[in-house]
């Protein structure tokens, strides 16, 4: 704790430069996410539960702590069977997981809806990319931060 206070005290910050950068980036990156589609909390909760913890999902063993997110990926992967993915088991993923994924993501999302809608043919690097989202070690810097 002591060292944290010392560090905070010595934290230099160039607020003038920061203000300029902040304004420029804010203008360029856009102010905010456009919000989320309105699904009732109750409906979403039940769908999440159904999608994420359905008994027998093949994902249960592979991605046990990540089922909520992985279910959405599995739906996508199931749809890419034409690209060579095995769909045994994956086809059992409930379609509700797709609704969950769609409902909880920003409206301006693009590639997941594109991929999931079947428009275009997700394969190769795209398919690897989606699968890799939840596979540790896919980034040169490791997985997401843990702190």
């Amino acid at each position: 704790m002591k060292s944290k206070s010392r560090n905070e005290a010595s934290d230099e910050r160039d607020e003038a430069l920061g203000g300029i950068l902040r304004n420029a980036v804010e203008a360029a990156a856009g102010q905010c996410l456009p919000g989320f589609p309105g699904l009732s909390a109750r409906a979403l909760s039940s769908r999440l539960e159904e999608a994420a913890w359905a008994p027998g999902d093949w994902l249960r063993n592979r991605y046990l702590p990540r089922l909520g997110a992985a279910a959405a990926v599995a739906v996508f992967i199931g749809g890419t069977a034409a690209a060579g993915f095995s769909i045994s088991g994956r086809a059992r993923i409930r379609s509700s997981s797709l609704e969950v994924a769609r409902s909880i993501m920003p409206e301006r999302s693009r590639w997941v809806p594109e991929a999931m809608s079947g428009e275009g043919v997700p394969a190769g690097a795209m398919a690897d990319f989606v699968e890799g989202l939840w596979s540790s070690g896919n980034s040169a810097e490791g997985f997401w931060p843990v702190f």
Partner: protein
Amino acid sequence: VSGDDLDDRVLAARWSDSRDEDAYRTLMARHGALMRRAAYVALGTAARRDPGMVDDAVQEACLRLLDALRSFRGESSLATFLAAVARRSALDHLRRGLRHRARLERAARLAAVPDAESGDPAAAVELGAAAQSVLALLSRLPEPDRSLLYLRDAEGMKVFDLALAFGLPEGTIKSKLARARARIRRSAGGEWGTA
């Protein structure tokens, strides 16, 4: 107590423990703009050429956070954690280079448009010449210096938190910050003076 009034840590715990989607939405509404900015800075010139990449990166970060929030242990601010996830998503996005058909088509269209830095009039009017030049300077910094400088000086994140987020010693963070500040000031020709 409504979700809007709750502390970030409480909201994160609600999502992780009970999949409280209101908590997740509140967090995204509260920090979504920060995540966009962090992703934008990490993408550098790529974001300027194709702003859609920012959306893609933020979306990826949102997907990751459905689960990644479980790994947030509260040792730093949640804002730093979210910015770090957004940044990493952006960098992963760049590295893997999606080859989706729509992306290729969009890239082809963009390739025909001059980069804003090189004087595209529409982009310059939209964003402003001053902002353009600032972004150009920022884009010239390498990662992670670019993100560190932005998150520290523009977003006010603590060096302690950044050290956790980037997995670097605090001393290294400080030296990188000093170097990045000096470099961007040098590039700007001392235009901004001293803080």
